Each structure stands twice: as C-alpha cells, then as structure tokens.
C-alpha cells in the first residue's frame, strides 16, 4: 500500500473494556507516531517510535495506555479499562527518519466508549 493504514476505522466499546488499535506505516519509514484528536481539538502527541530505540512515551496520558512496535513495521496502541474520556480519533503517522521529517498520517480510528 502507498500510505499509512489503520484498523479498525471505527470502534465502539463499553466502558471498562480493553481495545487494540493497529497501524501499518509506510514501508521504509523508521519513525512512527501516535496522536489523539478529541472532537474539535488539535492533535495530542501520545508516543513516538524510532527504529530500535526506546520509544518516547512522554505523551501517554495514563498507565492504561501502552503501545508496541515490531521492528520498523506494525504498531498497536492498547487502551486498558477504557473510559468515556478516551473517546477520540486516534491517528498514526510515519516518517522516513528524524522527527523533523514530514509526517504521513493514516485515516485514524474513531473510538467511542459508551
């Protein structure tokens, strides 16, 4: 595929359940980012992966949030014990190398916690 893909596109879950969101970056991109966008708000940085380096987790809002990346490929963002305030669009982006490079975004996963 030519772009960043994310799945599912929509996820509705009940409060307290765990969810996993998936991101497939552009092939060859070593950097991968997760952002959260609440309704009417700007993008909020969550986590950054660069190659095999330790991820920058400084944006994760609580210990209910975690993310993994296998090498330079797929990443999953996991939210445990979801809360209603977790409802948002979760966007993934990838770039060639450093964080200074242009980021290419996926279409996002819209998460609704009932």
């Amino acid at each position, binding site marked *: 595929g030519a772009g960043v893909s994310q799945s599912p596109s929509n996820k509705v879950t009940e409060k307290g359940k765990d969810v996993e969101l998936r991101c497939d970056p552009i092939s060859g991109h070593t950097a991968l980012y997760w952002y959260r966008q609440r309704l009417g708000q700007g993008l909020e940085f969550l986590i950054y992966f660069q190659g095999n380096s330790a991820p920058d987790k400084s944006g994760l809002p609580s210990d209910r949030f975690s993310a993994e990346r296998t090498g330079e490929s797929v990443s999953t963002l996991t939210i445990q014990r979801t809360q209603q305030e977790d409802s948002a669009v979760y966007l993934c982006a990838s770039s060639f190398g450093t964080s200074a490079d242009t980021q290419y975004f996926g*279409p*996002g996963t819209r998460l609704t916690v009932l």
Partner: protein
Amino acid sequence: SQKIEQNSEALNIQEGKTATLTCNYTNYSPAYLQWYRQDPGRGPVFLLLIRENEKEKRKERLKVTFDTTLKQSLFHITASQPADSATYLCAHQAGTALIFGKGTTLSVSS
C-alpha cells in the same frame, strides 16, 4: 510552557479571495513550522514547512511567512476555491513530537 495557537476557529470567504490564516507561538523559538491540511474523517496532510531563517515559502497558490519578531506564521491561499475548504493546522517540533494548534476551519463559498 511552549504554546502554539491558531486564533481563529473558523474563516469564511468567497471564492477567488485570498484566505489568510494565523499561527502564533509563545515562550519558545521554533526552528521551523509546518502547515497541514485536514479534511473531515481524514488524517492531516503535509503542505509546507518554513524554517526560521526563511521569510517566505511558496507552493502553487499557497504562501507561508515566518516572522520571528512577531512570533507568528501566516498561511495564505490565493484565488481560493471551494475545494480549499478544510481545517488547516500549524505545528512545531518539540522534542520528538509535533505539537499542533487546534486548527482553523476554512470555508470557501462559490
């Protein structure tokens, strides 16, 4: 703390006019700023990057300026078209992340 702000949430203009969007930053001096476009239900798409030593950058009908004295970047769309209607985001680098403004939603009416 570092802040990046887009003062106008919405801008409505007529087709053919020039749209001007503003991005202000406080408490820091970014090495560069990026501008993205976001359509409903889609992720942002990169448009332009301007560095602090560049006064102006152009791409087709788009022009971005960077005024380090005013701590401001202006984003212009000339000869605007209804297809330009979208939300436009400015962003700066902070550590490893891009920090985004909330965006300005531009509506161009025919």
